[in-house]
């Protein structure tokens, strides 16, 4: 609507100190933003014009598609623990962010996305590259806001960062009309936001629940901890370790939580869920007290809910009150930030060992090794398996690398077999299952953790979804190691078609380009292997190569990921084959 306040900027005569666009950049600098992933366009040009003068203060990574930009922002946030920042233009630029927003929303990733928008006086007129971005992104953002006045920018940015990173983190989108970017105003500096009256990022910790939880834990004969990404989001890895070590409780992880406790820690009993480890799934239905920490009982973790841990008392620690009791009925809700609640709990729990109970997990592990793992990591057949690639990679990186996986069979194999010594080392699209996530997320992860080795692992299908981001690697020089586990199929769908659809392989047979040649076109070194004797040397070559490297590994075509909890089954009905 054309109002007096929303006049076209050309009509404004009062020239003051800063443009909205420059105030935006200055606000980002105040938030200590060091990297922006973005793509320019008509409606965000004033912001890019302002950015031109600050290139020495902030690094802008030009991506090849806005979806790549936002996944890179996610990778950055996940590896660094900081807020990822993404720029996109109006209309298609903004709508291309939607998948990444949904991904960041369900995986609680802090992002601030800035989108350009048409002039305020053109809103609602179906202007060129106009899309109703605030409405479109409402369900997939923690908060969003449309700025139509330059003077709003510092305050809105401060709110955006505060909301994105506080409490349960999430993506925030700020849509800025072009007139607001151009408009000059009296920029009075930037004040970080620390309080919004209608927003309570953390619930109050209630002592009686801490006491009740401790009492249940102290009485438990077979306590079992399930942890999720909340431990990392709360930077509570040490507090978590202290808790499980004192209470001596076997602990299993969701894929979003992987790495918060090192893979080889004696209390780390493995992965939960559909393709998780045997013991943790079966024993979920045998434990007497289940302690869920910063996880949300996703259906891929719980399997059939009415047969899920019915025998157990459930203690749920979560910062988001809406998660407690959402899927699984909770005996004791421990509201709060686990960084604060875990030490309180640790203080009240008794020092214990639970050796016999832990031994039970080991027995199931032995069974799983014999039935599944041995063959996956040391196959008798000539063809390579995905598992042995990770086995070799573990040896060469010693578990110190960041593994960024895509979605599908290789993702499950990566989560199952990659050794993780450090927190924030397993970056994957957990909740949304976004194919094409790995390559751009790995680029972002490298910018977020420049001193660490970042290995993107993708299938032949997923890699082709965002393959254009090789251009981003070429231009930014990001040192990303890429492994394509090529089984010439959309493997996970094929597995389901084999198991549940009478082998009717409907459109899962996918052809791929010569990935090494494609990489070469982008000036990226690469190699393709299919023989076991080449595996170790090729992985070593990839890791030692100065700069990015693409390694394609041809793996056996029709391998299935096991164990598996078939859909609609209980976790204790997990199949080993």
């Amino acid at each position: 609507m054309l109002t007096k306040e929303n006049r076209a900027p050309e009509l404004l005569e009062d020239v003051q100190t800063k443009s909205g666009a420059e105030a935006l950049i200055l606000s980002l600098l105040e938030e200590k933003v060091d990297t922006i992933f973005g793509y320019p366009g008509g409606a965000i040009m004033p912001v890019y014009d302002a950015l031109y003068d600050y290139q020495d203060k902030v690094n802008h990574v030009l991506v090849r598609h806005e979806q790549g930009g936002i996944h890179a922002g996610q990778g950055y946030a996940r590896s660094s623990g900081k807020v990822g920042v993404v720029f996109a233009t109006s209309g298609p630029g903004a709508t291309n962010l939607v998948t990444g927003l949904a991904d960041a929303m369900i995986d609680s990733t802090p992002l601030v996305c800035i989108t350009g928008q048409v002039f305020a006086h053109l809103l609602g007129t179906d202007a060129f590259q106009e899309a109703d971005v605030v409405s479109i992104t409402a369900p997939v953002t923690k908060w969003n806001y449309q700025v139509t006045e330059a003077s709003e920018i510092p305050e809105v940015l401060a709110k955006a960062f505060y909301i994105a990173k506080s409490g349960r983190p999430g993506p925030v989108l700020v849509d800025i009309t072009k007139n607001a970017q151009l408009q000059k105003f009296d920029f009075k500096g930037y004040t970080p936001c620390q309080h919004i009256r209608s927003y309570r990022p953390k619930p109050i910790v209630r002592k009686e629940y801490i006491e009740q939880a401790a009492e249940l834990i102290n009485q438990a004969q077979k306590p079992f901890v399930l942890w999720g990404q909340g431990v990392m989001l709360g930077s509570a890895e040490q507090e978590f370790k202290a808790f499980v070590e004192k209470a001596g409780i076997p602990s299993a992880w969701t894929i979003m939580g992987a790495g918060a406790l090192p893979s080889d820690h004696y209390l780390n009993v493995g992965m939960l869920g559909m393709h998780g480890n045997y013991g943790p799934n079966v024993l979920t239905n045998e434990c007497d007290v289940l302690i869920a920490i910063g996880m949300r009982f996703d259906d891929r973790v719980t399997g059939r809910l009415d047969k899920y841990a019915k025998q157990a008392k459930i203690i749920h620690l979560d910062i988001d009150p809406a998660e407690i009791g959402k899927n699984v009925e909770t005996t004791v809700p421990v509201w709060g930030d686990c960084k604060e609640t875990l030490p309180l709990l640790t203080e009240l729990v008794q020092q214990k060992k639970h050796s016999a109970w832990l031994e039970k997990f080991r027995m199931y592990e032995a069974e799983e090794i014999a039935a599944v793992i041995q063959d996956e990591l040391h196959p008798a057949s000539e063809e390579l398996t995905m598992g042995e690639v990770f086995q070799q990679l573990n040896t060469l990186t010693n578990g110190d690398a960041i593994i960024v996986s895509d979605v599908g069979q290789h993702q499950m194999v990566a989560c199952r077999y990659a050794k993780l010594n450090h927190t924030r080392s397993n970056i994957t699209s957990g909740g949304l299952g976004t194919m094409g996530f790995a390559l751009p997320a790995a680029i972002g992860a490298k910018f977020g953790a420049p001193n660490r080795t970042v290995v993107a692992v993708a299938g032949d299908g997923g890699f082709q979804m965002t393959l254009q981001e090789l251009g981003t690697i070429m231009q930014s020089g990001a040192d990303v190691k890429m492994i394509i586990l090529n089984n010439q199929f959309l493997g996970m769908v094929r597995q389901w078609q084999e198991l549940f659809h009478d082998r009717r392989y409907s459109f899962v047979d996918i052809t791929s380009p010569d990935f090494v040649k494609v990489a070469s076109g982008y000036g990226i070194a690469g190699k393709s292997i299919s023989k076991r004797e080449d595996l170790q040397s090729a992985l070593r070559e990839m890791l030692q190569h100065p700069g990015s490297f693409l390694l394609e590994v041809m793996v056996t075509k029709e391998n299935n990921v096991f164990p598996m909890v078939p859909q609609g089954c209980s976790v204790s009905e997990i199949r080993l084959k």
Partner: protein
Amino acid sequence: MSNANHIDRKEFNITVYTENQIGLLNRIAIIFSRRKINVDSLNTSPSEIEGIHRFSIVIHETEEVVSKLAKQIEKQVEVLKVYYNTNEEVIWQEMALYKVPTDVIAEKALVERLLRENGARAVVIRKDYTVFETTGHREETDNLIKVLQPFGLIEFVRSARIAIIKHSEGFNRKLREFERTEPGHEVSENEYLNSRDKVFSM
């Protein structure tokens, strides 16, 4: 949520206090539509406190679903507080307007009596038509439609339900709690160390 038993479903009145923010109506609406829950009635208007709006939402669901929805609504950044109540726990009213030809009303004493019986009140009287207003529960406003239909009811409109919670202490006090700036991190740590036998707060 999807396993809600039909027998356990009943009317719930959801009261939401929010900031006055563009787009928030959409954010609240999609919490229902995402779960394929129909909103039977929705009223939103400024509350007794300047800058704060009050939503009254009526849905037909189980208490379990309603309590989860309330948590999801309360999660929205600009939502201050959500309450949900059964019909027994609230006093509620809907307002209705009825437009009828004036000559019929004027000619037939019966109509006048019926209107009086139904607690209707004339809002506008013109030569050609008269607008009556009544407030009440759904059945009451429905009943007057039936009554007026034979006499040439021209137009009818009904408002959304508004409801007062019987046992609420109002929102003024609550708002003062929200207004209180939360203590910073250093303070909260000290607070927990110094008063651990009380509630740990941050």
